[in-house]
């Protein structure tokens, strides 16, 4: 059995491409917070305490747009709901961990850590999952905080950074994350609905339009899923007849 350090180092190595890949976003995030007129400490607090890339980016536009507290919190919750699926997926691999480690480990369950850990958790020996997870999560977390600090520092130092169009980085990333799914009808319909409602509901107070749009998109997705299931059932019945 390889020792814990070796296993943790494997985790670190497996995560390296994602750690490097998210570094520019950490820098941009730190810069954006400062250029939105918020203190650098806010950038660090969000990265260190919340540690959720897309929710962090959205929160800047919500905070500087004057959104109400419950709206900021609810939007964060909705944006991060996908993590419940990650939590359910890794649950079997983590159930033997001591409770304090499960409590701490859950904090680091980002998209990236999940992606790396999930790939390895099946074939890993059960004593190895915890050191492996820590090797994945801890360096990734520290890297995110460190580069956020660099971004906040640069944002304070470089004049006119707000006019550079760094906000486009968030839009480009989100677009690149969802576009590969536009190969079947349902995600396209979900996106078309959410996009249109978001535009039409822009005037709503407290930035509530975003949540309304998300709900409308999900509702359309659920409706289409139901229709497809019904159709599938009808076809199976016809074949049986």
């Amino acid at each position, binding site marked *: 059995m390889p020792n814990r350090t070796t296993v943790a180092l494997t985790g670190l190595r497996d995560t390296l491409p994602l750690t490097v890949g998210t570094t520019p976003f950490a820098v941009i995030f730190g810069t954006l917070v400062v250029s939105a007129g918020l203190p650098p400490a806010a950038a660090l607090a969000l990265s260190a305490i919340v540690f959720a890339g897309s929710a962090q980016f959205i929160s800047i536009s919500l905070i500087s747009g004057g959104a109400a507290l419950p709206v900021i919190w609810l939007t964060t919750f909705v944006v991060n709901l996908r993590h419940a699926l990650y939590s359910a997926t890794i649950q079997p691999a983590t159930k033997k961990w001591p409770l304090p480690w499960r409590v701490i480990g859950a904090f680091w369950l980002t998209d990236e850590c999940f992606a790396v850990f999930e790939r390895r958790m099946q074939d890993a020996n059960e004593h190895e999952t915890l050191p492996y997870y820590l090797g994945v999560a801890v360096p990734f977390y520290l890297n995110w905080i460190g580069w956020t600090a660099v971004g906040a520092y640069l944002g304070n130092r470089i004049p006119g950074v707000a006019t550079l169009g760094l906000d486009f980085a968030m839009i480009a990333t989100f677009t690149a994350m*969802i576009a590969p799914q536009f190969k079947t009808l349902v995600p396209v319909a979900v*996106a078309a609905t959410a996009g249109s409602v978001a535009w039409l509901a822009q005037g709503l107070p407290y930035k509530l339009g975003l949540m309304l749009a998300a709900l409308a998109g999900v509702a359309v997705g659920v409706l289409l899923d139901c229709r497809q299931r019904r159709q599938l059932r009808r076809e199976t019945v016809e074949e049986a007849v």
Partner: protein
Amino acid sequence: MSDFLWVVVIGMFVATYAVRASFVVFGQRLRFPPAVVQALGHVPVAVLTAIVVPEAIAPGGQLNLSIDNPYLVGTIVAGLVAWKTGHTLAAVLVSFAVFGAMRWLL
């Protein structure tokens, strides 16, 4: 940092951590009905599109559907590259180059 920002951050932490801890900490006592799991699958596309669309078609709040809107052109480029290749980082880099060139030239 103001008290308001601390309250924002603590609330965001709770909203994020509760979701991540759900199954890992509380284990099998929790269970999602399959319909909920399926609905959750639509959340990322819905939320992210709802964020992107207004920013792309109306940067700064002004509707601009013309070809000289770098946000719109950049978003379309990012979408096309990601859709074609499946590489997130490549899509971001290419679209950022297009966006930057347009900002610089226009």
